[in-house]
């Protein structure tokens, strides 16, 4: 086995040092009835040559063209990011428990926290969560800790349906009620911007009304690229902002792993879940970074922790940090602008071709088309060309039958958009 170095002589020497006659004897502490007395029934071991052939066959090829977004919108990530992530010092380090030998990871987390806080217009951000949906659930839990006594949050239907389902599971377990109406007292009001249908919400108004009702405001952003062009929720007063960064991490990988983003106001620091990296100095007074405020966390506080989260999505947070750092201020704004331009173009072409577009008003990079029977047929036919025109909304919203959510981004050329419109119309 190529990952093991022990020769027969090594094993003999080591057993001698240990004082056991055989490898089998090392397992004496496991009672006989607890031992497995047969080989594991798994497929035969494979050489790297055979393994590669098997995996290539399973993987097949990437879809030719894809206009699917719905919370997993792919964006352009420079090749450098993937190359840098392959450096063993990033890939094979673990949680930076020993700061003197983990300054690389710690400084990168500090940069990530700074970027996320800035993006969302808030003062502080944590070192990442699993994904956007669990980040939202944690935000709701945090809001209920901050507003004890009101075990209810408002999550409207314009929030990603799977995020709402995850909240039902997690908040349900914590006896927190979810409502989509705003006429009951709630500890927090959630909104998604751009919302699940791609529209831009009137953030200022939502936030103001929520605060009048003495509720906290949680904003969700499933495609942070939008924030290159649109006002940050924090700048308008949102209390907690969460998001999903997968589109900027390099690979969609069937939706995960991506990275959950979590930012809030400094006054709520002690109630925040997850790891935090902070700046400090070393014994010689040099600037350095450490994991900090871990008295909120499970390994110190055990049953009194703010969350049970331990492992986060550090490598994806690093990818996100590298990608945004490469774009830079002007590049990131340009990226957001290009997404909006592609959506404007798509809507223009779709309108001209006679498509019915649902939801008017300002939008980001997604558009909902209401298809006729023949257009629906055309969308199915496109799948045979390995082109996927969008996500059908009736999967979650029976009221929107034959409605297609189409994402158009910087990755789609004008020709590809033209071809999509032409094919769907035919």
């Amino acid at each position: 086995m190529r990952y093991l170095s022990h020769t027969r002589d090594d094993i003999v020497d080591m057993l001698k040092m240990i004082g056991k006659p055989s490898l089998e004897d090392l397992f004496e502490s496991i009672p006989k009835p607890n031992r497995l007395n047969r080989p594991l029934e798994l497929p035969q071991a494979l050489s790297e040559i055979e393994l590669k052939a098997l995996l290539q066959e399973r993987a097949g090829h990437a879809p030719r063209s894809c206009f699917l977004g719905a919370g997993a919108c792919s964006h352009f990530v420079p090749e450098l990011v993937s190359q840098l992530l392959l450096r063993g010092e990033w890939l094979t380090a673990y949680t930076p428990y020993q700061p003197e030998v983990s300054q690389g990871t710690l400084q990168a987390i500090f940069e990530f926290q700074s970027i996320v806080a800035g993006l969302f217009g808030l003062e502080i951000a944590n070192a990442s969560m699993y994904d956007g949906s669990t980040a939202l659930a944690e935000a709701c839990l945090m809001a209920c800790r901050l507003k004890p006594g009101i075990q209810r949050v408002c999550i409207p239907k314009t929030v990603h349906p799977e995020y709402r389902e995850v909240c039902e599971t997690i908040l349900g377990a914590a006896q927190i009620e979810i409502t989509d109406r705003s006429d009951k007292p709630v500890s927090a009001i959630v909104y998604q911007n751009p919302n699940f249908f791609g529209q831009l919400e009137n953030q200022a108004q939502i936030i103001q009304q929520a605060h009048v009702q003495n509720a906290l405001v949680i904003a969700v952003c499933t495609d942070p690229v939008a924030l290159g062009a649109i006002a940050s929720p924090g700048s308008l007063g949102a209390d907690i902002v969460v998001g999903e960064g997968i589109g900027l991490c390099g690979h969609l990988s069937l939706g995960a792993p991506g990275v959950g983003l979590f930012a809030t106001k400094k006054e709520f620091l002690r109630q925040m879940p997850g790891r935090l990296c902070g700046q400090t100095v070393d014994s010689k007074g040099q600037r350095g970074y450490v994991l900090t405020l871990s008295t909120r966390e499970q390994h110190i506080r055990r049953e009194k922790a703010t969350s049970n989260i331990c492992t986060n999505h550090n490598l994806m947070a690093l990818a996100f940090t590298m990608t945004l750092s490469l774009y830079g201020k002007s590049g990131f704004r340009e990226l957001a602008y290009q997404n909006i331009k592609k959506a404007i173009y798509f809507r223009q072409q779709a309108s001209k071709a006679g498509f019915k577009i649902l939801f008017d008003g300002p939008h980001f990079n997604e558009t909902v088309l209401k298809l006729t029977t023949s257009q629906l047929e055309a969308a199915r036919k496109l799948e045979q060309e390995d082109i996927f025109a969008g996500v059908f909304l009736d999967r979650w919203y029976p009221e929107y039958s034959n409605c297609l959510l189409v994402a158009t981004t910087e990755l789609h050329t004008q020709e590809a958009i033209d071809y999509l419109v032409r094919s769907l119309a035919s």
Partner: protein
Amino acid sequence: MIGRTNFDFAENLSFEHGSPGRSGVDLPAVSMPDAAVRDLLGEHARLESDALVLPECSEPEINRHYTRLSRWNFSIDTNTYPLGSCTMKYNPRINEWAGRLPGFANLHPYLPESRLQGALELMWDLQNYLAEIGGFEAVSLQPAAGAHGEFTGVMMIQAALKARGETRTKMIVPHSAHGTNPATAAFFGYEIVNVESGPDGLIDMAEFKSKLDNQCAGIMITNPNTLGLFEKNISEICKLVHEYGGFVYGDGANLNALMGMARPGDFGIDVMHFNLHKTFTTPHGGGGPGCGAVGVSKALEPFLPIPVVAKGKGYYFDTHRPQSIGRVRSFYGNFGMMVRAFTYIRELGGEGLKQASERAVLNANYVKARLKKYYHLPYKTDCLHEVVFTHKNTLDIAKGLIDRGMHPPTIYFPLIVSGALMIEPTETESKEELDNLCEAFIEVAQEDPEKLKGAPIHTALGRLNEAQAARNPILVYQHV
């Protein structure tokens, strides 16, 4: 092996590099003027004052920045990393190749199932492999990490009790457990009932029995436990918990000791999370992403989170499961990590996995044998994949090891001993590396304790002031 100073460069924050207007990405030109966007956005537009915190650098600058920073990290690829309970084994490079195959990496979660058959087959197979390795009826790959797996597992236990019309109030958690165990149980409103370890380092059976009653939802147990010792009464523990109508949660963090040797499901454990990033070599990534797949017994199978990967005519995501606890995250779990774990299991096969566990236990026992003269061994019981020593100057020992080129072990955990040094060498360290590790441990043990207080001296930064970081939290870049 002595640490030697190499080319180490001081490296500022990315925000302190570059110059206004620079970017490391060139996007294709788009003919539409910016005015169209400004008109559309109106009052939705991001204002100048709502500034992004991003560097302005060319690609070479960013490349150098993150390459330099990487060199400030200790990693498995560079040195022995005997962090107990974390299973810092070699992360094979073929895994990275597999995870980056365009046919896996570029799959959108909402592609039609017919377009995802290869991926679904891989998930189906991985579920079955894990079920076989752990001895479980079924497996869900959904949870993102161990703690998330615990959440999922305890929720299934609660749901199963509820289906019987029962609400229970307590959860037994041994004092030696990982902090995530009590944190998870407390989330569900369970009162945590602590059980101490006996003189042999194992759960004190008398105390356990005295605390077990029909208000206990069950027990959360790690086996081998966090001292690396096999809980030899595991079958009896499971039997007793079951007699009282409870369930047994297994923390699978230490599965690397057992592959092909023993199966937690066979002990009577009802639900257990696997840490694919520990046992099955998906990269640790500086702290994740992991994958905390959960295996369950027949009794808990109906409660698995949705969707479950199922096989009919083809493979599909089954969401019609009336007793399911629901969805625990968006999409289908950390698929990228599943590809890597699948790759590893297929490369090793059953015999290879068993050999890995054998060597992991051999390595831990070798380190134990070599170090027991120099460090206090609080429990003499035979250990499996990790060994716990104690010392009166644990932190100084840890920092002294850094100067000798070694990553310190896990320190001050488990909490049941004072000043713990928890060493898990893993199977992928050679005998020579283990000898280097042991020599470093012996050298620090014999070093002048006063001198060790100044360690590490070979790192770019000396000891960090953690108290100051907590007292005056600076969590984001401060513009000067």
